[in-house]
C-alpha cells in the first residue's frame, strides 16, 4: 500500500470511519506489525496534541504569568537598588559578578578578532554558484520561468481565433522523437504523467446525462469519457477568459492528445494561480520534458524549483523521476 493511502487508512481508523470488518482487519495487522502500531500511535499523538485547545490555552496563560513575574522580579530588584552581584532572579540563584565581567571581556575580544580578520567593509568577491551534480549543466543564457516577459511571450494557442474543430497535429511528438534521448524523455514524461494524474482524473464527474450541464461540466464529462478532442473544442475560447479549472482541464486534454506544446502553454498560465501553481509546475515540467527534453532551460529551472521544497506535493514524484533523467 502506498504511503499516502496507508496514512489515510490510519486516520480513518483513528476517526472511527472504518467498517467493523475493516477495523478488525487493521487491528490484526497492527498486532502482527509493531512498526505499523508505532506509526499509528504517532498519528494518534499528533492528532491529539494539536487538538487540545484547553491545554494550549493553559500553556499560553502560564507563559504570560511567567513573563510578568520575571519582569516584576527584575523591576523589583532594580527599585531596591540591588547590585548586579546581589541580583537574584528569584528562588535563590545569584548571578556571579565575576562571570558577567568575563563574559563581557570575551565578547569584546571576539569582536576585535572578527573585525581584524573579516573586515566587513571590504567587498567580498561573489562565490560561484555550485550546480547540483544531478542536474544537467545550466545554460548561462537560460531565462527564469518566472520572468514576466516569458509569461507574456506565449506560443499561440492552436485554437485562438480558430473556429474549426481541433485536430491533433502531434507536433511535439515529432519534434522530440527524432533522437533516441528525445524518445526516452517522452516516455519518461508520459509514464510520470500517467502515475500522477490518475487520482485527479478519477475525481472528474462522468455519466451525468442532465441536459443543463454547463460548458465546464460538459468538458469534465468529456474528459472522464476520454474524448479529449471534444474537451479542447468545448474549451476553445480566448484563454484570458477561461477559468483556472478549465485551463487546467484543457492542459491535461492537450497532454493526452500528445500536443505537449499546447499543454505547456496552458499549464504555464496557471503558475501564478494559488490553487494550481504546484500542479502547474509539475505538469508544465512533464509537458516540456516530453516536448524538448531535459536540457531545456525551463525544464532545469522547474526541476530545481520542485526539488528544493520537500513540501511540494510532487516532490516525491520528482524524486522518482530524477534517477531516470540522470541515467539517460
Amino acid at each position, binding site marked *: 500500500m502506498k504511503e499516502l493511502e496507508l496514512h489515510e487508512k490510519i486516520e480513518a481508523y483513528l476517526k472511527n470511519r472504518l467498517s467493523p470488518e475493516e477495523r478488525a482487519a487493521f487491528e490484526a495487522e497492527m498486532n502482527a506489525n509493531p512498526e505499523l502500531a508505532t506509526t499509528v500511535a504517532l498519528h494518534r499523538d499528533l492528532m491529539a*496534541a494539536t487538538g487540545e485547545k484547553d491545554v494550549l490555552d493553559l500553556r499560553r496563560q*502560564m507563559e504570560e504569568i511567567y513573563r510578568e513575574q520575571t519582569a516584576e522580579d527584575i523591576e523589583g530588584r532594580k527599585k531596591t537598588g540591588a547590585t548586579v552581584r546581589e541580583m537574584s532572579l528569584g*528562588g535563590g*540563584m545569584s548571578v556571579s559578578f565575576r562571570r558577567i565581567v568575563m563574559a563581557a571581556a570575551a565578547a569584546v575580544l571576539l569582536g576585535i578578532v572578527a573585525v581584524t580578520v573579516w573586515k566587513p567593509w571590504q567587498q567580498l568577491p561573489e562565490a560561484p554558484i555550485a550546480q547540483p551534480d544531478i542536474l544537467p549543466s545550466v545554460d548561462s543564457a537560460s531565462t527564469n520561468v518566472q520572468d514576466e516577459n516569458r509569461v507574456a511571450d506565449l506560443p499561440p494557442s492552436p485554437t485562438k481565433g480558430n473556429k474549426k474543430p481541433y485536430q491533433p497535429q502531434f507536433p511535439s511528438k515529432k519534434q522530440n522523437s527524432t533522437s533516441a534521448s528525445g524518445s526516452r524523455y517522452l516516455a519518461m514524461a508520459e509514464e510520470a504523467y500517467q502515475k500522477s494524474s490518475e487520482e*485527479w482524473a478519477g475525481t472528474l464527474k462522468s455519466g451525468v446525462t442532465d441536459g443543463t450541464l454547463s460548458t465546464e461540466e460538459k468538458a469534465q464529462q468529456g474528459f472522464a469519457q476520454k474524448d479529449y478532442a471534444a474537451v479542447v473544442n468545448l474549451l476553445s475560447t480566448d484563454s484570458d477568459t477561461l477559468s483556472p479549472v478549465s485551463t487546467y482541464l484543457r492542459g491535461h486534454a492537450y497532454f493526452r492528445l500528445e500536443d505537449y506544446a499546447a499543454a505547456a502553454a496552458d499549464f504555464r498560465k496557471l503558475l501564478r494561480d494559488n*490553487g*494550481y501553481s504546484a500542479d502547474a509546475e509539475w505538469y508544465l515540467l512533464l509537458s516540456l520534458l516530453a516536448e524538448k527534453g531535459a536540457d531545456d532551460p525551463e525544464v532545469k529551472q522547474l526541476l530545481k524549483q520542485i526539488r528544493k521544497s520537500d513540501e511540494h506535493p*510532487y516532490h516525491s514524484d520528482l524524486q522518482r523521476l530524477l534517477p531516470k533523467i540522470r541515467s539517460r
Partner: protein
Amino acid sequence: MAKHPNEWYAEGLRSQTPEVLRSIFDEFLPMVVGFVCNNSGTREDARDVFMDAVEALFRKAKTGELVVTSAFSTFLIEICKRHWLKKLRRKKFDAEVTPDELVVSNTVGDMDIPLEMTERYKLMSEKFALLQKDCQMVLSLSWHTEMGMEDIAEQMGWTYGYARKRKHACKEHLITLVKNDQRYQELRA
C-alpha cells in the same frame, strides 16, 4: 506552606482560573527553581519542569482523576522533583551535586504517565507551530473537523488531488520535525 485548601487549587486549576494559576506560580515556583538550580539545572529548566507538572495536574484534574492526599504544595513540589530527576537520568547527566538526603517520594509515581504525555504533546505542538500556515490549516481541518477532503480542498482553494498530496507532504514534514528532535529520542528511550 500553601495559603489555600487543596480544593481551591485543584478546582481553580481545572477551570483555569487566572487568580489560582497566579497563586500557584507565586507560591511554588521559587521553591522549584531553588531545587532545580541546586541540582545542575537553570531557571529555564525549572520553568519547564514546573509548567509540565502543572499541565500534567491539569490533565488529571479535567478527567476527575486528580487525588491529592497530601498538601497541594507538597504534592506539586514532589512531582517537580521527580520530573527533574527523571529528565537528568534521560540525559545521562552526571549531576555535580546529588544530595544524599534527597529521597523522591514514590507517592507521585502515578503522575509519570501524564507527565510523559505532557512532554510528548508539548514537543508535537511546538513542531506543528513551525509548519507553514496552510499546512497547519489543512491538517487542522482534516484532523479536528468532520470536513471531507473535497470540502477542505474547496475551502483552501485547491484541487482535490493537490489537497491530498499537500496534506500528506505537510504531515510527513511534521513527523520529520518531531523525530529529528533530541527530546523525541529521549522520550522513546
